[in-house]
């Protein structure tokens, strides 16, 4: 059982890839496109799904190579994923959604906003690396700096995810979510998905150049005690994006789950109209 009634992820082909998604249809507008964090999946929204669904039409996706979606080698980078995201928004006829992408979704959402400002109304990001020079710590730093993925590929991805889940401070995933996180990266899937963060050293300097020109308003929410992506990454966005608000919450890395209530308050205030003020 998930924490959400009638939560039924489906699959749909896009660009030849099987993409897993879940959606609600009780409300037409606004559209909120939720991206998976890593190493999690669209089940990461189980704590906030009902609250968000009362205010918006939700479409949650697993980005290619993450969660339950099929990956492709050329998409394992924030910039390529940003282009994919714009394509998804167009082909799935999502209008001009608010894109909510904590963690790995941060780079993808910002590259999408830079690539096509007409595709996105606003973005809610954070807990994802953005700083140049790179400011990451812990296992994430090791993954990015390792000469190759041989060592991590030798470990069953389920074990890596189980280890990552020890960083949850308050969040207790449902049995369905826990199993989905483990299954999503089983075998070699974790090492495969790690290609995305290993593209940060080349992609983030490109993103840094684009930030001052991104007109899409951006809300950053980050954990003040994030042991892998320190708050410097949130400040970097706040200092360099023209329309940005930065809120830090008393959390580690998994702020959207460990502080779901506060995170949800900030996100809903933003989607409910705060994004217009940020664009002043």
């Amino acid at each position, binding site marked *: 059982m998930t924490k959400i009634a009638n939560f039924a992820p489906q699959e749909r082909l896009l660009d030849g890839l099987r993409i897993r998604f879940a959606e609600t249809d009780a409300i037409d507008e606004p559209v909120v496109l939720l991206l998976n964090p890593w190493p999690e999946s669209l089940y990461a929204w189980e704590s906030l799904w009902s609250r968000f669904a009362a205010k918006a039409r939700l479409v949650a996706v697993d980005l290619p190579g993450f969660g339950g979606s099929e990956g492709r080698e050329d998409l394992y980078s924030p910039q390529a994923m940003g282009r994919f995201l714009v394509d998804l928004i167009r082909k799935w006829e999502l209008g001009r959604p608010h894109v909510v992408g904590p963690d790995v979704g941060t780079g993808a959402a910002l590259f999408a906003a830079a690539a096509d400002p007409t595709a996105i109304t606003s973005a809610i990001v954070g807990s994802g690396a953005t700083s140049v020079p790179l400011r990451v710590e812990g296992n994430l730093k090791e993954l990015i700096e390792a000469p190759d993925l041989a060592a991590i590929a030798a470990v069953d991805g389920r074990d890596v995810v189980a280890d990552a889940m020890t960083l949850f401070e308050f969040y207790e995933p449902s049995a369905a979510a826990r199993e989905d996180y483990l299954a999503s990266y089983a075998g070699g899937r974790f090492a495969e998905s790690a290609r995305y963060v290993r593209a940060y050293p080349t992609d983030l300097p490109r993103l840094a150049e684009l930030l001052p020109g991104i007109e899409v308003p951006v809300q950053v929410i980050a954990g003040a005690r994030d042991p892998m992506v320190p708050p410097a990454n949130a400040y970097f966005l706040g*200092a360099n994006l023209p329309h940005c608000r930065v809120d830090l919450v008393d959390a580690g890395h998994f702020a959207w789950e460990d502080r779901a209530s506060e995170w949800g308050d900030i996100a809903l205030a933003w989607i409910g109209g705060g994004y217009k*003020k940020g664009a002043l």
Partner: protein
Amino acid sequence: MGSNDQTGGYVTVPNQSVEGASGIEFAYRDLGTSEVPLVLFQHFRGNLDNWDPALIDALAASRRVVTFDNAGVGGSSGTTPHTIAAMAADAIAFVEALGLDEVDLLGFSIGSFVAQEITLVRPDLVRRVVLASSAPQGAAGMHGWAPRVIDQVGHRESSPQGYLNVFYAPSASSREAGEQSMQRIFGARSADRDAETTWQTRQAQYDAVCAWGIPDHAMLERVRAISQPTFLANGDSDPMILPHYSHLLAGLIPGAEVKIYPDSAHGFLFQHAAEFAADAEAFLGGER
């Protein structure tokens, strides 16, 4: 309590002076009554006379209000320093010279940078903070005023038209409000006017503004340490310090409130003097 409270309000309240520990003779005005005074920090190149009397009188109706010239500015002695930190140190010396242990701050423009700095380095002195037309240190786009702004307010000879162009929105209603405010600022007080600010003050203050605006994302973290209740305000069309910086600050300073006033620019607090004073009063009078 203001020792020289006058029924004639800000246009007649006398200039006073007090010597700070560093030997600076600070010019100031003091009116109204309250347990915790509100100390005001003036904008770029402004002196005691550049506060709109309509705003000061509205604020002083319910609290003690102190305006002052910081070191080297207007009627104060000394030399204007080139950094916000040094301006904050001078301002603290002024507050100490008045014998005040706890104050509220209202900083406007560069004065809001000084108010942030005081709150960070002398937190025990500060009860509540109002930041008007403000920005955090280190945010991109703040490295000096935009060319069209400095072209209006940066010349040796200041021009009323340039002031109007920056402090008021292009709309007829904002311009009309601006002209009325300028009449109050420049026409209402005939005796005992303050000394004009000098080119040295202009240059030093602009150095401080540019230094504050050197892009440095790590500096944004500083204001997270502000624990005092903070109210952020700006006009929706401010070309000098864009209103989105108030929203950026609102996220960074824990629990900060923000309000953006319509149809107004840098001088929104003069244009909307009654509304802004009421908002400031509601904020300053709130429960801690």
